[in-house]
C-alpha cells in the first residue's frame, strides 16, 4: 500500500511535468499578440515594449523561459498580466466556490443517480423503469447552457424562490451560501444524474445474471437483500471509479459553463478568463491545478477500488 502510493506520487510528478511542457509548447506554437505589447498598454512606445520584453524575459530562449516560469510556479511568484496579481492568489480565491459547487453537486448526482438507477433496475421493463429512462435521457440531453438560464428564469426571475447566482462564502452566511448554490448544483448535477442512473441500471442488470446472485436467492435471502447486498453492491464498483474521475475533473475546474451562467467566481471562470485573454501564466496555473486533482482522484479511485473489490491488490501486481 505504502509502496503503491509512493510510486503513484512519483507518477504524479511526471504527469504534472508533462502537462506543464505540453501547455508551454502549445502556447508558444499558437499565433498570438506579443505579451509585452499587452503589458505595455495601447499607446506604448517601442522602447517601453522592448524594456518589458527584457524585464519579463520574453526574448530569452524558450527552454530558459520555461525554466523561469516553472521556478515561479513553485515559489508562487507566477503573475498574471492584467491586473498584475499572483496566479496562485486567484486560484486560492476560486477554490472555495468551485469546491462548494462541485462537492454539493457531486453528492446530489451520486445520490439520485444511484437511487433512480436502482429503482429502474429492480423494475426493469415496467412503467417506472420506462418513466425513469425517459427522465434520464432528458437529463442527459438538456445542455447546461440551456438548463441554467431556464432555471434562472423560472426559479429566480418568475417565482423568485432562489437568487440568480453569485457565490456567498459559507463563513459569511451559511444560509445564503446554500440558497445561492441550489440552482447551480441542480444545473451541474442533472446531466450526471441521468448518466449515472443509466450506468447503475445497466450494471445492475448485468450483475443480476451472475451466478452468485442465483446463489444468494437459493440460500433464501429476500429479494431486497439480494438486490442491495449482492446486486447493487457489486454494480457499484465500476460506478465508484467513474464517480472518482468525474469528481476529479469537475473539481479541476471543468464546470466552466455552470460557473459562468451563475457568475460563480471559481476556478472554471478563471480558466475561461485566462483562455479568453490568452495569457500563459494563468493558463499554466489552472492547467497544473486541474491536472493535480485529476491525478490525485485517480490515485484515490485505485485505492478505493482495491477496497471494494478484494481481488484487486495494490502493489506488485498493480504494475502489470
Amino acid at each position, binding site marked *: 500500500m505504502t509502496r503503491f502510493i509512493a510510486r503513484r506520487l512519483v507518477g504524479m510528478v511526471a504527469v504534472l511535468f508533462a502537462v506543464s511542457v505540453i501547455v508551454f509548447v502549445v502556447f508558444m506554437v499558437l499565433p498570438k499578440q506579443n505579451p509585452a505589447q499587452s503589458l505595455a498598454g495601447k499607446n506604448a512606445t517601442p522602447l517601453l515594449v522592448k524594456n518589458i520584453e527584457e524585464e519579463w524575459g520574453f526574448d530569452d530562449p524558450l527552454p530558459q523561459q520555461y525554466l523561469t516560469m516553472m521556478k515561479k510556479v513553485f515559489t508562487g511568484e507566477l503573475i498574471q498580466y492584467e491586473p498584475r496579481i499572483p496566479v496562485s492568489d486567484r486560484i486560492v480565491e476560486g477554490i472555495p466556490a468551485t469546491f462548494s459547487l462541485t462537492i454539493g453537486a457531486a453528492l446530489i448526482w451520486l445520490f439520485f443517480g444511484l437511487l433512480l438507477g436502482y429503482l429502474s433496475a429492480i423494475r426493469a421493463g415496467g412503467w417506472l423503469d420506462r418513466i425513469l429512462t425517459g427522465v434520464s435521457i432528458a437529463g442527459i440531453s438538456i445542455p447546461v447552457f440551456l438548463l441554467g438560464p431556464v432555471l434562472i428564469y423560472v426559479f429566480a426571475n418568475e417565482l423568485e424562490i432562489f437568487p440568480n447566482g453569485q457565490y456567498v462564502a459559507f463563513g459569511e452566511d451559511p444560509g445564503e451560501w446554500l440558497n445561492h448554490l441550489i440552482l447551480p448544483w441542480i444545473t451541474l448535477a442533472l446531466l450526471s444524474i441521468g448518466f449515472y442512473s443509466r450506468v447503475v441500471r445497466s450494471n445492475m442488470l448485468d450483475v443480476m445474471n451472475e451466478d452468485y446472485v442465483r*446463489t*444468494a436467492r437459493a*440460500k*433464501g435471502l*429476500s429479494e431486497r437483500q439480494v438486490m442491495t447486498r449482492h446486486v447493487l*453492491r457489486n454494480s457499484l464498483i465500476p460506478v465508484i471509479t467513474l464517480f472518482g474521475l468525474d469528481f476529479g475533473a469537475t473539481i479541476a475546474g471543468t464546470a466552466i459553463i455552470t460557473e459562468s451562467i451563475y457568475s460563480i467566481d471559481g476556478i472554471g471562470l478563471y480558466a475561461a478568463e485566462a483562455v479568453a485573454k490568452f495569457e500563459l501564466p494563468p493558463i499554466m496555473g489552472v492547467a497544473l491545478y486541474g491536472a493535480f486533482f485529476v491525478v490525485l482522484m485517480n490515485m484515490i479511485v485505485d485505492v478505493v477500488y482495491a477496497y471494494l473489490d*478484494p481481488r484487486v491488490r495494490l502493489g506488485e501486481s498493480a504494475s502489470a
Partner: protein
Amino acid sequence: MSAPLLSVQGLRVGFATEEGVLQAVDGVSFDLRPGEVVAIVGESGSGKSVTAQTIIGLTRANNARIEGSVKLGGKELTSAADAEMQRLRGERIAMVFQDPMTSFNPVYRLGDQIVEAIRAHRPDTSKRSARERVVELFEAVGIPAAERRVDDYPHEFSGGMRQRAMIAMALALEPEVLIADEPTTALDVTIQAQILSLLEQLNRERNLATILITHDLGVVAEVADRVLVMYAGKVVEEGTLDEIFYDPQHPYTWGLLGSLTRLDLPRPHRLPQIAGSPPSLLDLPQGCPFRPRCPHEFSKCPQYPGLEAGLPDSPNHRDRCWLTPEEKREKRMVEGQIGLEAPRQVGPA
C-alpha cells in the same frame, strides 16, 4: 418403502419468448425419498437444470408458465407464495451449483456469505455463533485450517475447496433435500472424485435426499440410486442405476453410455459420439425429438410414445421408444458393447 419426501408430478415449465413458447420441461415426474439419490441426466438444454430450479422456485418470472405439481412433505410448492418459497430455500431445500468459481460473490468473505445464509433464516443467531457453525461446517466438508479459512475471499480458494465451501453452505441449515446442479462439471477429474465421495458420505450420514443433475454418466454411476434420462424437456428413460447401465432401453441412453470412455476396454479409434445436436425447443420435430439423430428411426417414430415399462420384470423401468425389447437388445450392441450405431447421414455435414 417410506413415503416420498419430494414428489414431482407432471411438471411442465414453459417460457414465453418472442419466437413462441419455449417448453423447457415437458411432463417430468419422480419421487425422492430420504437418503435417496436421484440423478437427472441429459445434454445442455434437456431441461434438467430448469427442473431443479423450478423445484426451489428460482424460475418464477413473468414470462414463465409452470404447470404440474411439486410437493415437499405433502405441501404444494408450485402455488406457494414467494415469501414462503424464500423461507424454504436454504432451510429445507438447498442447492449446490455448477461453477464454484462464479457461484460465490467475489467481494465478500466466504464465511460471511455462509453466515448471511444462516442469519437470513435464523435472525436471532449471533454473528459469533453463526461463525462457529461455519467453522464446524468447513471441517465437516474437509476444508483444512477451517478456523482461518472462513475469513478468506472466494478467489483465495481453489476450485475444489470452493465447491466444498459451496456444499458447506448448502448444509448450513440442515436441509432435507439437496439439489446438486452439475456439482463436479467445472472441476478436475481427481477433485471430481473427492467431491462425489463427499456428497455420498453426506447423503449417507445425514440421510439427505439428493437430486443430482449431470450430463456425465460416470458421475451417475458413482452415487445415484435411480436415474432419469432427459431429452428435449421430456424424460425418455427412467430406472434404477443397474437398469439404466446394464439394460438401457432408449437409443439416446445407449448413445450416452457408448460415449463414455472405458478404462477396462481397448482404446477406441475415435471417441464415439451422438451425431448432430439437440433440437431447438422452439422447433421440435414431430413425434420423438431424438428421431433426427437416431439411426434406428422407423415408421412409428413420428408419433411420440408415452413413458411406459416395456419389460415385465421391471415395472419401474420406463422409456419412450417404439422398438420392442428384443429389437432393443439386438440394436444396442455395437462392436460388442452398448452404444449407438454409426449414424446415417444427419442433415448437411
